[in-house]
């Protein structure tokens, strides 16, 4: 069996055309991750460009309102470009540069990863092309223009369901067309090895910081960490350093759309079955013949029919729990956090807030719950208004 396995999941199921390229990425990453100069350069970028470390904020009003665990918010929304995506992208684009690549391509759902990639490309003088489902370019029109402002070319993908999965398909196709000078900067802990491992490594700074910040503030570990899961990169980043700490509950919140029993959902762990797609063996929403199912969520970033292979291993071993959160619960949490703490979370992150609202009251006042606010919600304001039937002019 190939490298890059998490239990039986993961692997490198990609066209032969990409095999040398992917192995080249793997070698370059292995070299760079232990190279003090690369580590230092990336750390500089994190501190002085992305604004790390991100704050760990004690949500006192929310804690009082819910009447249970002490709630902390990890503020990835305050990073440059407004989400955790910048952590991964700075790492990968810097790696691309070291590899002598001159062009990066990426898929995007909500546009957060696309914006982050376009940003890093502008900073590091790389040509940049972003693939985005046509439906998502409409849901997130402002982000399309942001990417263009940053100098990227945005392709609206019209194949299949015209959402995130199709954007990944098209980015993979493009990589096979032009592979020599190009790195496909995958946005989540998915795809063929080494991406699930490499993206996790670039994101694990989230849990490292949570650990340090909480130790300083409370002198102890949290009792639970909650994060939303689409492909699963912010959750993997928020979980990783706590995996060996068995007292910490790790909870991933999946997008249940109109409900886990309604066909219109994207809850892969709840509803998926084992399959091989987009370079990895993992769980996928699919039919009995292995045709990938059209999935749905109000959140373009969670609207994906698969999940990163390491999450499936964490689920199988019982180390992490995965729970479904509906559109309605997420929207209501979006509004709740805005009102109670003056923080507008991304609709993706609002899925984690929604579950935390249920969990916190069941926990003791002496317990600590951390919610990873993976991104900010400015991009979602128009969509939430539409959801609530409010007419606004964009």
């Amino acid at each position: 069996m190939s490298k890059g396995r998490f239990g039986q999941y993961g692997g490198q199921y990609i066209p032969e055309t990409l095999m040398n390229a992917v192995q080249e990425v793997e070698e370059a990453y292995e070299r760079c991750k232990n190279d003090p100069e690369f580590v230092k350069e990336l750390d500089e970028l994190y501190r002085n460009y992305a604004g790390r470390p991100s704050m760990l904020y004690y949500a006192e009003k929310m804690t009082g309102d819910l009447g249970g665990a002490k709630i902390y918010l990890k503020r990835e929304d305050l990073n440059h470009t407004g989400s955790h995506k910048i952590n991964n992208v700075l790492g990968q684009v810097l790696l691309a540069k070291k590899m002598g690549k001159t062009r990066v391509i990426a898929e995007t759902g909500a546009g957060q990863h696309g914006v982050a990639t376009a940003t890093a490309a502008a900073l590091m003088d790389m040509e940049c092309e972003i693939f985005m489902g046509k439906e998502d370019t409409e849901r997130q029109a402002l982000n399309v223009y942001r990417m263009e402002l940053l100098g990227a070319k945005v392709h609206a993908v019209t194949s299949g369901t015209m959402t995130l999965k199709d954007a990944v398909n098209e980015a993979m196709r493009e990589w096979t067309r032009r592979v020599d000078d190009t790195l496909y900067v995958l946005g989540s802990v998915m795809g063929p090895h080494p991406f699930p491992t490499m993206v996790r490594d670039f994101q694990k700074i989230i849990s490292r910081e949570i650990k340090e910040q909480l130790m300083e503030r409370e002198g102890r570990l949290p009792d639970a960490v909650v994060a939303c899961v689409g492909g699963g990169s912010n959750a993997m980043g928020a979980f990783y350093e706590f995996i060996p700490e068995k007292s910490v509950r790790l909870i991933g919140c999946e997008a249940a759309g109109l409900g886990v029993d309604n066909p219109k959902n994207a809850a892969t762990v709840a509803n998926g079955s084992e399959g091989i797609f987009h370079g990895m063996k993992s769980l996928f929403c699919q039919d009995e013949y292995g045709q990938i199912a059209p999935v749905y969520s109000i959140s373009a970033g969670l609207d994906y029919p698969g999940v990163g292979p390491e999450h499936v291993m964490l689920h199988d071993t019982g180390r992490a729990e995965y729970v479904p959160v509906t559109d309605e619960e997420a929207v209501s949490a979006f509004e709740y956090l805005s009102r109670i703490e003056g923080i507008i979370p991304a609709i993706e992150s609002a899925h984690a807030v929604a579950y935390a609202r249920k969990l916190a009251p069941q926990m003791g006042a002496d317990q600590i719950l951390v919610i990873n606010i993976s991104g900010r919600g400015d991009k979602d304001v128009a969509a939430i208004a539409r959801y609530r039937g409010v007419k606004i002019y964009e």
Partner: protein
Amino acid sequence: MSKIARAFRDGKAFIPFVTGGYPDLETSEKLILAMVDAGADMIEIGVPFSDPIAEGPVIQEANEQALAAGCTTDRLFDMVERLREKTEVPLVFLTYINPVYAYGKERFMERCRRAGIDGLLVPDLPFEEKGEIAPACAQYGIDLIPLITPTSRERILRIAAEAQGFVYCVSSLGVTGVRKEIRTDVCTMVSMVRSVSDAPVAVGFGISTTEQAADMADLSDGAIVGSAIVKLIAEHGRESIGPVAEYVKKMKAAVRKQENC
């Protein structure tokens, strides 16, 4: 000699591709028989998949249409069984790995054997992952046909050394589709294969004209054509049997003329 090798026995082979169940199962069956009559030495049948990442727009569209028209893996196997009552020509499936995995690897191979499929091409199953289905293929006598590409370089030697059936030489970067010219050094790729294997080599991706087919067959043991045929089917729908048969006849004639490289 595997049944697939027999396709190359009488000189250069012409191997047309169609998406199974496109535009519908009935027409698809007729198309395959017409291509056999027109001189095809082997037929490559695409198992429709929702997300065919190695395909260009023409075959993507055919995949979507075939699924929309009700083609399933089971119905495709039934079609192959019906074809087998009428022809002995080698038949291979081009399928993404997920439909095989979802059907059950052993169950899929057992059905292949029973229906009369001789080999499998799996574009998203590279050499390093072939252990996923190679044991099941071996158990049921189905050849697992490897692909080599312009970026394979030294990998060609490892891949070809373990080749079964034939070696599919991908002539171009990118996805399937018609191309004006093919610039890859196919000759070097073919000679690398020949240095380690007796398996025949057929060249595909981008071929649409008789000149291209003749050139590629000249450098190898045969030519594979997909998108150009699927495009004809897209244009003519259920009336595509005549035009496709005529095209295959013309391409086979161009390929047959070539001497050995």
